[in-house]
Structures are given as structure tokens and as C-alpha cells.
């Protein structure tokens, strides 16, 4: 395999890691006020993601850094082009991180209430905007002969882009519901379970329309087939949830998100950022890539350290495998 193709695949892997992992903690954040009826319940919800959310978020930092290293032109065009959208995502991630980390630093409920709002808003915005961004990457954006993006935030807010945003938003909410069902007890678990099917079915419809549309714009039999497998995995997840196979249900939604990313990346290949102005101006895995030397160095580093990271992150989830309960002392108080 070409090194550039390998790195295209590796970047897909990093985004899969990001969306599968941060997806559920976005979902938990968005659902904070929907499922958590009071402070102790919301605290219990935050505690399900507390030990892991930061490690989850690093996946996007590494995806960004790896894109910079392996495809500098992609990094430059994407982040300067999607400027305001990215700014909004960054602000949201800042507020959310502060909300999660500072929430327990003061005991008063007003403080915690404000932090909860930061968490909810800070989870909602990126869950929506990452979808908008990816939909636009797949559909193609106005890129000129100098590889520069000619557009604005409004360019991205087209129907297909918004549908992409809605898709990631709903997928992450469902993913979050399944995570909460798996990681909590009592009323939170029951409420999350109750919402899974109605939210899940709407998600299924939106996601299938989006993936079909994406494959209609750009895609081949393979990317379409993967999209269909993703849809099947999602229905399997909903079925498992109904049968109270909570682990399988969560695995199913994780698989769905992963396969959806695979489908989009397959549809893109060999482009990384197609131009809507002229196909000759598209950024591809070859014209956006670094030198073979840099890619070789990066490959060696990745082959050694990505498995190491996976091992200790999996171990973390194992350590915190126990369900989180609503702190009873506080409820009685």
C-alpha cells in the first residue's frame, strides 16, 4: 500500500476513535438536563464520563496533528477554510472542558447549574458542527487552483451539511443513551432506556438518508455497502437495547459510528477535500501529502505507539467498569 493511502486510513482511524469515544460523552453532555432531573443525578451522569472524557478528546488533537504532519495542505485548507465553524467548536470544547472539570470545585447548586449548562451547550455544538464539517468535506467545497477555500461559514450551512450535522448529533445522542444505560443504575438507566427506541428510530431514518445522499454525491459500491452495514449494525444496536443486552447495544452503536466514518472516507478516496469548482483543484492523498520520508517516520511512530495507547485506554475503561450510582447521602440531605 502507498504510504499516502496508509496515512489516509490512519487519519480515518483517528477520527473513528474520536467519534466513537467522544461521541458518547457528547451524548451524555447533551442529555444532562433531559435525563438528569436534579443535581445528584446530573453528577452521577458526569461521573460516568469523568475519568475518560479527556482521553477521548485527545483523539481529535492527534487527528489534527497527524493531518498536519501527513497532509499539510489538507490541514491548511480545512482549518483556514472552515474558520468560523472551527472557532465555534473550539469555544464549545473550552466551555465544556471547564464545565466538567470545574463543576465539582464548588459546592453550591447555582455554580453547578451554570457548569451543567456549559457542559450541555459545549457538547451540543461540536456534535452538530463536526457533522456539518464532514458532510461538506464529502460534498466538496469551493477550493481554488491555489488550494485555498473560497467561501464562508454560510457556504457550509447548506441542506446537506445541516443534515450531516443532524446525523452526528442524533447518533451521538443515541450513543450517549446506550452508554448511560450501560453505566448507570436506577432511574437514570430506566429513563435512558425509555428514550433509546424513539430517539434511535428517528436517528436511523436521518442517518440512512444522509449516508445514501452522501454516497449519491460521491461514492462507489464499496462505500455504499459499508454504509448499509452501518445501518444494519445500528438496527442491531436498537434491537439489543430492546432485549436489554446493554453491552451489545453500545457495541452496536460504536460499530455504526465507526462504519459511517469508514463509508465517508471510502467515498472521499483518493480525494481528501474535493473542490466543487473544478475537480482538478481537489486536494488528494497525493497532492496534499508530506514527503515519503516524513510519512515513513510517522508510520514507525504510529505503529509502535497507537497500540500502546489503545492498551492503556482500554485498561482505563476496565478500571472504571463499575456502574455509577446516584450518591444517596446527598439525596437524603
Amino acid at each position, binding site marked *: 500500500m502507498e504510504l499516502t493511502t496508509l496515512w489516509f486510513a490512519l487519519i480515518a482511524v483517528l477520527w473513528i476513535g474520536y467519534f466513537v469515544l467522544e461521541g458518547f460523552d457528547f451524548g451524555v453532555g447533551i442529555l444532562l438536563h433531559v435525563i438528569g432531573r436534579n443535581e445528584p443525578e446530573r453528577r452521577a451522569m458526569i461521573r460516568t464520563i469523568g475519568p475518560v472524557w479527556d482521553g477521548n478528546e485527545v483523539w481529535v488533537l492527534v487527528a489534527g496533528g497527524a493531518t498536519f504532519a501527513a497532509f499539510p495542505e489538507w490541514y491548511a485548507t480545512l482549518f483556514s477554510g472552515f474558520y468560523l465553524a472551527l472557532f465555534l467548536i*473550539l469555544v464549545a470544547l473550552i466551555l465544556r472542558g471547564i464545565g466538567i472539570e470545574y463543576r465539582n470545585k464548588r459546592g453550591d447548586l447555582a455554580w453547578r447549574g451554570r457548569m451543567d449548562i456549559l457542559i450541555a451547550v459545549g457538547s451540543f455544538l461540536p456534535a452538530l458542527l463536526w457533522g456539518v464539517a464532514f458532510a461538506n468535506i464529502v460534498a466538496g467545497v469551493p477550493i481554488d487552483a491555489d488550494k485555498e477555500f473560497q467561501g464562508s461559514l454560510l457556504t457550509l450551512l447548506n441542506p446537506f451539511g445541516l443534515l450531516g450535522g443532524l446525523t452526528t448529533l442524533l447518533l451521538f445522542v443515541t450513543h450517549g443513551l446506550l452508554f448511560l444505560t450501560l453505566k448507570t443504575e436506577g432511574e437514570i438507566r430506566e429513563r435512558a432506556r425509555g428514550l433509546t427506541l424513539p430517539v434511535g428510530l428517528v436517528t436511523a431514518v436521518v442517518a440512512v438518508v444522509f449516508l445514501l445522499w452522501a454516497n449519491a454525491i460521491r461514492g462507489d459500491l464499496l462505500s455504499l455497502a459499508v454504509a448499509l452495514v452501518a445501518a444494519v449494525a445500528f438496527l442491531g444496536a436498537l434491537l439489543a437495547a430492546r432485549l436489554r443486552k446493554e453491552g451489545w447495544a453500545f457495541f452496536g452503536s460504536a460499530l455504526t459510528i465507526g462504519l459511517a466514518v469508514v463509508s465517508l472516507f471510502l467515498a472521499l478516496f483518493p480525494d481528501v477535500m474535493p473542490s466543487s469548482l473544478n475537480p482538478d483543484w481537489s486536494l488528494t492523498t497525493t497532492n496534499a501529502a508530506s514527503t515519503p520520508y516524513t510519512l515513513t517516520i510517522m508510520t514507525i511512530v504510529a505503529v509502535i505507539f497507537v497500540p500502546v495507547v489503545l492498551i492503556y485506554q482500554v485498561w482505563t475503561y476496565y*478500571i472504571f467498569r463499575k456502574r455509577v450510582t446516584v450518591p444517596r447521602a446527598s439525596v437524603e*440531605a
Partner: protein
Amino acid sequence: MLARWQFGITTVYHFLFVPLTIGLAFSVAGFQTAWYRTGKEGYLRLTRFFGELFLINFALGLVTGIVQEFQFGMNWSSYSRFVGDIFGAPLAVEGLLAFFLESTFLGLWIFGWGRLSRGLHLATIWIAAIGTMLSAYFILAANSWMQHPVGYVYNPVTGRAELTDFIALLTNSTTLITFPHTMAAAFMTTGAFLAGIAMYRMLKDRDRPDAAGPFRAAAKAGAVMLLVSGLLVALTGDMQGKIMTDQQPMKMAAAEALWETEQPASFSILTIGSLDGSKDVFSIRLPYLLSFLATGDFNGKVEGINDLQKIQEAKFGPGDYTPNTAVTYWTFRLMIGMGALAAAAAAWFLLRMRKGRTPAGRTVLVATLLPFLPLAANSFAWMFTEIGRQPWIVFGLMPTAAGVSPTNDTLVVLVTMVGFTVLYGVLAVVMLGLVIRRVRAGLPEATSDRGFEHEAEPALGLGY
């Protein structure tokens, strides 16, 4: 211009938290190790106390760090295209090796109290601390490449700089000296933080021996850390100065506002007057010293700005190759001055604490101000080294003006710059408020079986 301000503001702000994160990670690990080995409750309580402060600080370093990873592409896309083949690699490696380590193991540390065995739990904070250090190395390697590009060729076909030797990039002479300098500065910053806060608490808790005792130990440890690392900062800074004179003579000349070449050159302690070199109203100068600082020889020749400007014009074509001399001159002095002041305060603390003595109450004021001195010194240091490199973004290779994103709308950059500045300002107030709250609350109880998530339980009887 706006892009520069945005990068300057977000980066200097980010770096307010970075040195404390590095130093506190190791300090908290140190306290926890002391508890692990001696079983003394005081160390556990210090671990929890400074652990909380560490986490409050870490959160801001973390969230502002996300911006750093993306803003090269957002505001500096031409720079990213030109250097991505080289500059991207250390950034990606930093994420893969360091960020994952820090974030995952800190999560384990925060929530792992009572859930992991004591030894394993202790290991998590050490691993996180090592992660912060690795992160510093790779990002400084990236920055050092901008100061002193090595291990690359310019490829005229692709029109960009391309990496030829990754090992050379990682062992850049600039990196090898900047890393110890920055690490020493991080420990100096942390020493001031520990000494200042522990001294403050020790004086407040003077009637409570169970709290005053541990704080006395922490104040001493902080003051010693500050002095020792301060010495290392000075030593490494001196070596860095010589390398800088060699690699970027213009920066050294600007730091000294040395317009004409001198041999031997005198060091200006402070100058009141105009820095454009035309007249000094008042100036204190030490003969021979600059020669020694720059070259290691008291009679060494130090080239002046005017000569260097001519040399660069001959090399790179007409243009202004002189950085803002006033800013470079004063940030250099403020960096050294603030650092020296902090070291003096630490020495004074130790003097007043010798043989079990407790300093007078007015020491509280010094203790309160002390943590801010190295923070200011760090900020001035970055301003100095970055502004002193101007007009280059990559020294001798790419002018800063050529690095900005060509398509960004000025208004949009202004909006995001104001947005980040306001947001960061609010966060600074919130963070400082939390630190003050925590410091006022004093030493927590000795609990080792509960994570930090329980640290501040809601007050009872709030009705739910």
C-alpha cells in the same frame, strides 16, 4: 497583524498554565511519594491540597491547548503548507506520546483513589507527570526549528521546506538548551507557587500545628525548588544566550539595543531614553559583561544592529530585519528581573524560616505576590524570544507576513481574536477565584479512599 496578536494572546495565555502543570505534576507526585513511603498524614493532605490546585490549573492549560493544535491551520495556513512536512511531525508525536499519556493517566489518578492499589495509583501521577515533560520536549523541538531550522532542504519543485533528518530535528542544539531552560523555569514557577501559597497558609494556620507543620515543609520545599531551579534557569539561560548570539545575532543585539558593534561590549542594566540608539538620557552599563554573556570571552566582539541589518540585506535582499528593539530590550530585562526578584524572595523565606522560626505577619504580602513573578517572567521570555525573531516566522527562511492565511477575512479574524480574549479573560477570573477559594479553605482532611469528584460536596439541607 491581527493573526499575530491572536497567536500571541492565546499562546502566552496558554503558557501561563503550562509550567505550573509540569511542575505541579511532579510536585504532587513528590508529596504522594513521601506519603506512600512514610505514611505520614501531612503528606497525604498536602497531596490533596496541591492536587486540587494542580487540577484547577491543568483544566485551563488543557482547554487552551486545544486551540494551539488547530490555530496554525486557521490563521497560518501558508506557514502550515510551507513547513507542514517538518513542523507537523513533532506536533503529531506530541499528541500521540504525551497528550494521551497525560489525559488518560490523570483521569486514572483523579478517580482512582481507593480504586487502584496505592502503588499503582502513585504510578499514575508519575506517568502523567512524565507525559507533561514529553509534551514540552516535542513542542519545544517544533519551536526551536522555527528559531534555528535544521534537518531540512528547501524543495523548489514543491515550493516548501522538507524534512530530511528527523533525528537532527529532535537533537537541534537550540532544542537541547531550550528544553532544560524551560523545564527549569517550570520548576521555578512551581517553586514560587508552592512557597508562596504554603507560606501564606502557614502564617494563617500558625495556631494549628497539624496544618502549619505540613505547610512549613511545603514552603521550604518550594523555596528550595525555586532557588535551585532559578540557578539552573540562569545557567541554561546563559548557554542559550551564547547559542542565540551564534544563531540569531540580531536577537542578541536587539535584546541589548546594541546599535553599533562593540569589542568589548558592555551590558546595559537599564536605559532611560530613546531606544532608537540616538541618545541615552540615563544608562547604567557594566563594561565587558555583554561580551562575556554573548561569547564567553570578556573581550569578545558583539555585532550591533546596524551591521547585522546590512549583512542580512546583503543575504536576503532589501528589507527591515530588525525586531522591535524597545520590546525586545525590555522583555529581556523584565524576564531576568522578575526571575531574580522571585529568587530573592525565596532566599528571604528560607532565612526567616531557619531553625523552626515563623516569619512576621507582613510576609503574607510577599507570599501572595510571589507566585505571579515567575509567571510574568515566563510571559516576557516568550515575548522576547518570539518578537526577537521577527521579521521571521522561520528564521532566515520565511517572513512572518508570508505565513498568514491568505483568504481569511480581517473582520472574522478580529471577531475570533476578541472572542478568545474575552473568553480567556473570564476564565482567568473564574480560575483565580477557585484557587483563592481552595487556598482559603486550607488543608483538607486526610482521605485517601475517595476521588476528587467528592471534594466539594453540596452543602447539606439545600432541599432536594
